[in-house]
C-alpha cells in the first residue's frame, strides 16, 4: 500500500459483508475492491469510464468503479459479480441466462454486464428487445458482437419470471 500518504478509513458493505480498509485518497474504488478486498471479479478495462468492465452496483445503481475514489464510497452498499449468485450457490437468473445463451467468450467484460443487467431487470423486469439493447448500451464487449448478450437479457427476464412463478 502507498506509504507516506495520509490514509483514510473506508467502511464498505460488499455483497452483504462488512469491510474496513485504510487507503490513500487517490485509491480508485476498482483497485480497492480488487486488491484491498481481494474481490477480483470486477475487471478494469480502460480506467476512463468507457468500457464498463468495472461496473458495480452502488446502493443498487450501476456505476463505474474506476471513476470513483474508494473514500467517496465510504458507507456504501456495493454489489459485485461475486455477490450475484443465490445464497445456496445457484446462479442468478442473469448469470444462468449468459450460460444458456453463450453470452460470454473470454469473460473479461462479463461482470460489468452482469451487474448492469441485474439492476436493469429490477427496473424493467419485462424488457422488449430494444429495451434490452438499451440496457447493455454502455458496456463494451470485443468478443461476442453483443448478439448473444442481448439474447441473455431477454432470457434472464424469462428465468426470473419462471423462478418467481415457482416460488411458494
Amino acid at each position, binding site marked *: 500500500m*502507498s506509504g507516506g*500518504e*495520509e490514509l*483514510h478509513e473506508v467502511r464498505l458493505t460488499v455483497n452483504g459483508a462488512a469491510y474496513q480498509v485504510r487507503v*490513500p*485518497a*487517490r485509491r*480508485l474504488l476498482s*483497485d480497492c475492491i480488487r486488491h484491498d478486498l481481494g474481490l477480483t471479479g470486477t475487471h478494469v478495462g480502460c*480506467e*476512463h*469510464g468507457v468500457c*464498463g468492465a468495472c*461496473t458495480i452496483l*452502488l446502493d443498487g*445503481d*450501476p*456505476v*463505474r468503479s*474506476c*471513476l*470513483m*475514489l474508494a*473514500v*467517496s464510497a*465510504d458507507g456504501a452498499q456495493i454489489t459485485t459479480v461475486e455477490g450475484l449468485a443465490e445464497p445456496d450457490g445457484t446462479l442468478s437468473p442473469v448469470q444462468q441466462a449468459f450460460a444458456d445463451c453463450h453470452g460470454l467468450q473470454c469473460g473479461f467484460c462479463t461482470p460489468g454486464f452482469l451487474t*448492469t443487467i441485474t439492476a436493469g431487470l429490477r427496473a424493467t423486469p419485462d424488457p422488449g428487445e430494444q429495451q434490452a439493447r438499451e440496457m447493455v*448500451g*454502455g458496456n463494451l464487449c470485443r468478443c461476442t458482437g453483443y448478439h448473444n448478450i442481448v439474447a441473455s437479457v431477454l432470457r434472464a427476464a424469462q428465468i426470473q419470471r419462471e423462478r418467481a412463478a415457482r416460488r411458494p
Partner: protein
Amino acid sequence: MKPPPLRYSRPTSLAEALAVLASLGPGGKVLAGGQSLLPLLSMRLAAPDHLVDINRLADLAYVRVDGGQVRVGALARHAQVLADLPARTAQPLLAKALRFVAHAAIRNRGTTVGSIVHADPAGEMPAVLALLAGTVRVASQGGERVVPASEFFLGPLEPAVRTAELATEICFPVLPRAAGTGFAEVSRRQGDYAVCGVAAMVQLGDDGRIAAARAAYLSVGPSPLVIDLTEAVTAAPAGGPGFAAAAELARQHVDPEPDIHATAAYRRHLAGVLTERALAEAAGEAREPGTP
C-alpha cells in the same frame, strides 16, 4: 493510469465545504460526480492538491419545480433529473438532452450541475442552460452570486466559477405556455460527445404561428452558441416548407473546428440539418404539448 497523490476532505455541510474551499485557495478542487474529473486524474492531466468531496451534502441533492424554475441542486445526479416527472413536465428539454449524456452508469453518478460547471462545449447540458437562459447560483464563504448562462461559459472547460467557489444550484426556466422544445444530435457512437448538436425552442403567438425561435449549438465552437432564429423562421410563408432559412442562418453563424471525427464543413452542414430537425420537434411540441 492511477491518480497522483492528493489530499482529501469530505465536508458534511455546505458551510463547512465553503470554509474548506476558502482555506485551500487555488489548490482546492470540488469532487461531485467525478465522471469528468476522475479520468483526468487517472490520466494525470489534472493534479489538484486537495479534493473537496461534496457527496455528503445531501441537502443539495434536490430537483424542484418552483417559481417558474426547475431548480437542480449540486448533488442531483443526471439520472435523478431524468427520472423526475415534475421536472420533465415543466421543462421537457431537460430529459430530451439528458438522454444523450453518456450512458446510464455515468448518469447514475454524474451530476447535472457538475457537467455544466465542467463547461465542455461538446456537452449537452451547457447548451441547454444557454438556450433556456438559465442561471447558476455560485456560493463562497463570502456570499452568493447568481450568474446568468450568457456569462457562465468563458471558454472551453472554463466556467465562471472562481477559486474557492462552489456552484450550488442551477435554475432552468420552465417551458412557457404555447412553447415547445426540440433536441437533435449526431454522435459517432451512441453516448459519445456530439459531432454536432442542437437544442431548440419555439414560442407560438396567439395566432398559433411561431412568434419566436432560438437554438443553442454544441460542438461547433468554444462554448455553447445561441442563435436567435426568429426572423428566419417567421419570414417563412405560413405552412411553408419550414426551416430552411433557419438552417442557413445556423450554417452561417457556427464556427466549428475539424477534429479526427469530423471536418468543419460536415459539422457546419449538420448544424443546418439538425436545426431543422430540432425546430420541427419544438414546433410539434408547441402545438401539441406532451408530444414526445
